[in-house]
């Protein structure tokens, strides 16, 4: 398993050491992924490949199915149709142990900052000196040293999201799912989260991030998937999709216009 924790002083900033090498074997694949709820098809036949070491950004309007897709890929929801494979095998709880997710609204256990981190390690069976080492490194990475004994739920929104990131990264996941991790954060907090994402990625972690922020997509993303009405409207290298969108939905959204498809 790749080591995620990187000394903050060794951080390489943009253009970062982005491994543009796309392995031929995808880490995760989805085929014909569909999800229905309330008699509606919310995710409609999505196929995608996620290659190791890359940062893939999912964008789209509200209700296009971005967060839903993330949950389906992470196994928090069961698809109505289609399948998700992890390294060529159906996604199962053991595979999920190699993944982590950070939610838009961070879920803080009613404990201290350090206890939140320890909990994540204890459920993965990491104990003793190794737990202490990872806890120390991760609190430093997330700049939470001074806050480690504070109750997690009294932290500011930015600090809570940093803790949520730290809790996800402390388990050294191979793949990290991020559901709008910087929504409603100020620029400084957003930057701190983006640095953590870059560090994780530089350490080899594959990232799948949902965002509404085109600037963030440009800063972080290697690839971009643009969703519209539960379908992939467009996909490709992030810069290419952002600079020269081909689909009407992406063009309208990036141009700040509403896109309402005409009914046939």
């Amino acid at each position: 398993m790749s080591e995620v924790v990187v000394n903050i002083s060794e951080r390489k900033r943009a253009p970062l050491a982005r491994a543009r090498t796309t392995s031929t074997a995808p880490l995760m694949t989805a085929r014909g992924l569909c999800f229905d709820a309330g008699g509606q098809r919310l995710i409609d036949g999505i196929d995608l490949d996620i290659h190791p070491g890359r940062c893939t950004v999912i964008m789209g309007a509200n209700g296009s199915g971005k967060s839903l897709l993330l949950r389906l890929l992470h196994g928090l929801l069961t698809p109505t149709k289609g399948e998700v494979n992890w390294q060529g095998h159906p996604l199962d709880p053991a595979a999920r142990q190699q993944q982590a997710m950070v939610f838009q609204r961070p879920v803080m256990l009613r404990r201290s900052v350090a206890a939140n981190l320890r909990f994540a390690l204890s459920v993965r069976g990491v104990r003793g000196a190794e737990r202490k080492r990872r806890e120390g490194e991760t609190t430093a990475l997330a700049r939470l040293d001074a806050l480690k004994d504070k109750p997690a739920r009294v932290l500011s929104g930015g600090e809570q999201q940093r803790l949520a990131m730290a809790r996800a990264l402390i388990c050294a996941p191979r793949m990290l799912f991020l559901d709008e991790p910087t929504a409603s954060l100020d620029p400084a907090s957003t930057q701190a989260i983006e640095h953590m994402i870059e560090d994780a990625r530089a350490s080899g972690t594959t990232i799948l991030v949902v965002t509404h922020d085109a600037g963030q997509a440009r800063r972080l993303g290697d690839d971009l998937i643009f969703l519209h009405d539960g379908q992939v409207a467009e996909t490709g290298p992030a810069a290419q999709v952002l600079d020269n969108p081909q689909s009407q939905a992406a063009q309208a959204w990036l141009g700040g216009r509403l896109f309402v498809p005409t009914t046939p």
Partner: protein
Amino acid sequence: MESFSAILAEALGLILSWDADVIEIIVLSLRVTLSAVAVACMIGFPLGAMVGAFRFPLRTGVIVVMNTMMGLPPVVVGLLVYLMLSAAGPLGVLGLLYSPTAMIIAQTILVTPIVAALTRQVIEDLYNEYSEQFTSLGVGPLDRVLALLWDARYSLLTVALAGFGRAVAEVGAVIIVGGNINHVTRVMTTTIALETSKGNLQLALALGMILLTIAVIVNGLLMAIRGTAARAAYV
């Protein structure tokens, strides 16, 4: 009949004089009640947490039964425990009838459904908040229950308090299985019932005031603990 003020004055005199009989009754009351609440919490916390944190067939039915049992009539529980512990009953050989242990058993049966049902609600609310994070982290069933119980610890104090309130004020079941025997099974509530019927209102009122004072102290302590926890956002 004496005036209320005279009765009140004598009742206060009894309390202030630390009457040995009164102290004995208070100690036994607390022993029975706290033991019953402790056992009820040991059963009710994990039971309620499991029902709150897991989805299984007939779960709704289990919740309906748990909620219904919160209103168990004490005299019916007393009667059932009496039948079990009486010489002709299946547990008669244990010789527990008319003992504090019998009273603890009866009160445990009354309090456990309250603790379990309220725990289920507290844990379910918390689990709804945590469920996706737990699934993402791969938290196993045992860790899930333990983590939820720990994180709900301050809310569960209130649950225990509800159980304590039910137990300490209960008279119907303990009088049937305890028999209200002087110096053996006489607790505050049964003494109040007995002394009132005998017209010995001073002792009854003294015990009533002590009972209320205990309830106020316990409530005050828990409010203080919860207040501290709330300031640390642990509730």
